[in-house]
């Protein structure tokens, strides 16, 4: 066969090879390169991708921050971050390969001239390494800095290649600010070029919810109001605000966790099966759920703030005693709510959600509690130890799935007890679990937006948050109302007791 004829044919040698799609050559520009996120998450993730040879063959990294430093100092700082935070063993050869194309620009985008300095460097790297004009901008900066950077980047778009913009949370502060930010970004970037990160979606166990629901024939027929009594979603943290008083005072639990992670977990639990696994199909189904969430009345939402208490045996201060927090702060560190998804599948099925800081332990779970057997033919005492069937998805820690079922206690008579069938991720799959940021950065480099949040999803999430927060303006709860190291305020328990239910036993 002549080479010309072969060129027109599909490559037969690729057939059957386990080839992963590799991203195109590109430059990744990280704004906020001296920040915590870059040290703890982004750089370790890039190192992990380099170790596994998943980065493009020609790839450059440019760190941008206000801190004065040069390329060498930046590389040294990033090397220490990788050595400290990476999940893999540190390999000098891998690091060298990554670091040789790593650069740093000390600038403040509010200053005249900063953007030209960056542009010159990016263009130089582009032409030296033949990156095809492909650029990924990662905005790991405080929300206030985003508009200026977006405007400047928009003005200086590369004439060739593709451009992608990764935006960290929080995406706005309320519906109006999120809409304004969306409008601003869309003036310069197409929706397909925007990657709004909610790192929960990069977690393996969150994606496993899709596998569990849509790869198993046994769950889907009973995944509805006829068989499910209610759903409980818990995002509990045992840590406090870790010195981020300024940030937390402006967000609180509802903007920090509820608006993004929690509503995304709910959407994945409640969504209809997508027709395929493309970004648009999955996001179309998620946004339908978000639109169907009924705005909860004031009695269906509980907020709390932790007082002093003990976590893992250690005495911890109250929220109002944390450094930087005003002593009369009314910021909530806990939210619980009863939500309804008003659609054919879920009408009248409550979704109880709760999230908070300084709770008894770190745990993110989704519990699907099924209705009781209609008529157990056993004596009442025999089934005293029997609880309803619960399918429990452990998002973190102890990643896995367990199903609570009733089983006969061995011996004479008929005693029934609840036992657990467990699937522990680390037990069946012995390969290390990738960090969420590895998956998300790689997906952004590949241009796959499935695990990122679309503009309409963000706006629906804010719409719900705004309506809850609006109701809060009318009352002033007595804070603190729960001790650190407990499972939240008593009113959260009452929220379920009123319905004859209780939070899942821990």
């Amino acid at each position, binding site marked *: *066969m002549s080479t010309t004829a*072969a060129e027109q044919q599909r*490559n037969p040698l690729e057939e*059957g090879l386990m080839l992963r799609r590799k991203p195109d050559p590109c430059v990744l520009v990280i704004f906020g390169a001296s920040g915590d996120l870059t040290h703890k998450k982004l750089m370790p993730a890039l190192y992990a991708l380099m170790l596994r040879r998943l980065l493009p063959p020609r790839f450059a990294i440019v760190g941008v921050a206000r801190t004065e430093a040069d390329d060498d100092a930046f590389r040294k700082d990033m090397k220490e971050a990788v050595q400290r935070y990476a999940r893999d063993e540190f390999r000098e050869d891998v690091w060298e390969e990554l670091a040789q194309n790593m650069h740093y620009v000390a600038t403040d985008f509010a200053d005249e001239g900063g953007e030209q300095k960056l542009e010159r460097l990016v263009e130089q790297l582009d032409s030296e390494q033949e990156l095809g004009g492909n650029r990924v901008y990662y905005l790991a900066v405080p929300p206030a800095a985003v508009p200026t950077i977006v405007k400047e980047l928009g003005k200086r778009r590369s004439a060739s290649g593709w451009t992608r913009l990764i935006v960290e949370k929080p995406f706005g502060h309320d519906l109006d600010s999120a809409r304004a930010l969306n409008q601003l970004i869309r003036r310069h970037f197409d929706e397909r070029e925007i990657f709004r990160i909610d790192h929960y979606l990069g977690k393996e166990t969150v994606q496993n919810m899709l596998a569990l629901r849509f790869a198993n024939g046994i769950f889907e027929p009973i995944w509805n109001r006829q068989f499910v009594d209610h759903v409980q979603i818990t995002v509990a943290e045992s840590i406090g605000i870790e010195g981020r008083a300024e940030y937390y005072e402006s967000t609180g639990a509802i903007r920090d966790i509820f608006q993004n992670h929690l509503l995304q977990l709910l959407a994945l639990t409640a969504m209809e099966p997508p027709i395929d696994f493309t970004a648009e199909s999955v996001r179309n189904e998620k946004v339908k759920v978000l639109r169907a969430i009924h705005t909860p009345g004031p009695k269906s939402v509980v907020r709390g703030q932790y007082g002093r208490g003990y976590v893992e045996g250690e005495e911890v201060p109250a929220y109002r005693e944390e450094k930087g927090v005003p002593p009369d702060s009314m910021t909530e560190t806990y939210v619980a709510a009863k939500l309804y998804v008003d659609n054919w599948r879920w009408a009248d099925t409550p979704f109880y959600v709760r999230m908070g800081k300084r709770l008894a332990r770190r745990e993110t779970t989704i519990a699907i509690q099924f209705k009781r057997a209609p008529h157990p033919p056993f004596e009442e005492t025999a089934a005293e130890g029997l609880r309803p069937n619960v399918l429990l998805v452990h998002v973190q820690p102890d990643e896995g799935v367990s199903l609570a079922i009733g089983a006969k206690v061995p011996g004479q008579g008929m005693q029934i007890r609840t036992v657990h069938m467990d699937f522990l991720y680390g037990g069946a799959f*012995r*390969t290390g679990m990738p960090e969420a940021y590895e998956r998300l950065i790689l997906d952004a480099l590949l241009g796959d937006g499935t695990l990122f949040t679309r503009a309409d999803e963000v706006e629906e999430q804010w719409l719900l948050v705004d309506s809850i927060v609006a109701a809060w303006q009318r009352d002033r709860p007595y804070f603190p109302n729960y001790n650190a190291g407990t499972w939240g305020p008593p009113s959260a328990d009452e929220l379920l007791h009123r319905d004859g239910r209780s939070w899942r036993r821990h």
Partner: protein
Amino acid sequence: MPPNLRTSVMTHIAWVPKPWLDQARAALAGMAERHPSRTILLVPDPGATESRIDAQLSLECYPVPDVDRNVCSEVIELTLCGSRAQVPASIVEPLLISDLPVFVRWRGEPPWGAQELDQLVDLTDRLVVDSTEWENLPHPYGHLAELFERTAVSDIAWERTSRWRALLATLWPGIAGVRTVRVHGTAAQGQLLHGWLRSRLGRDDVRLELVETVRLEGIDLDGEPAPFPPGDPPSPSEVLSEELDRFTRDRIYEAAVRAVAG
């Protein structure tokens, strides 16, 4: 402390004639951590005067990362003495874990047409061989091809060429007109790469020149060395582990073997 977790994702049978025993144990030791399985090691000793089964049972435990628990799976080592070595299916059938896939790793060249091979081929979902362990290549590939309709087959020698195949694929379309491929590697790797190129390119006129070495060290195309593939070659455990991740027939491998077998 939480209890240990007993887990298996498959039943893994290894047919290991005595000369292969140490190598097999070493590969299994590295593999079991990634694929917790019930492992049944069958050591045939057909020449033994007495017909009996000697059994040894052990438990392998590995910590689960970030969780205070161990994952444990069992290793059953059976020495099949005398006539027992001819009827392995009846011995392993009761030991298989229901509903989980069964993989058979056959060490050395299988005794084509023998009862013990036929029995294990019929109960396995995948037969894993390493044609590097065989003599008189390419002759045995013809026998192997006869098994393709009965079970899925993997060849570790083939898996070891995967990095090179991925690299050669990047040379398309220039590679389409290649006339001679010189392989610096084992006879099995040379034959399989040659068969692969012929079957994928749909050409019988590609010539093989084999420079035998203990591992795949290089490939020349019409006298020009192909670039070296990136990354490190995988360990024996990693290669076996890769094979155990597959559950369907490898049609590309089958076509390569058929091209070699003629």
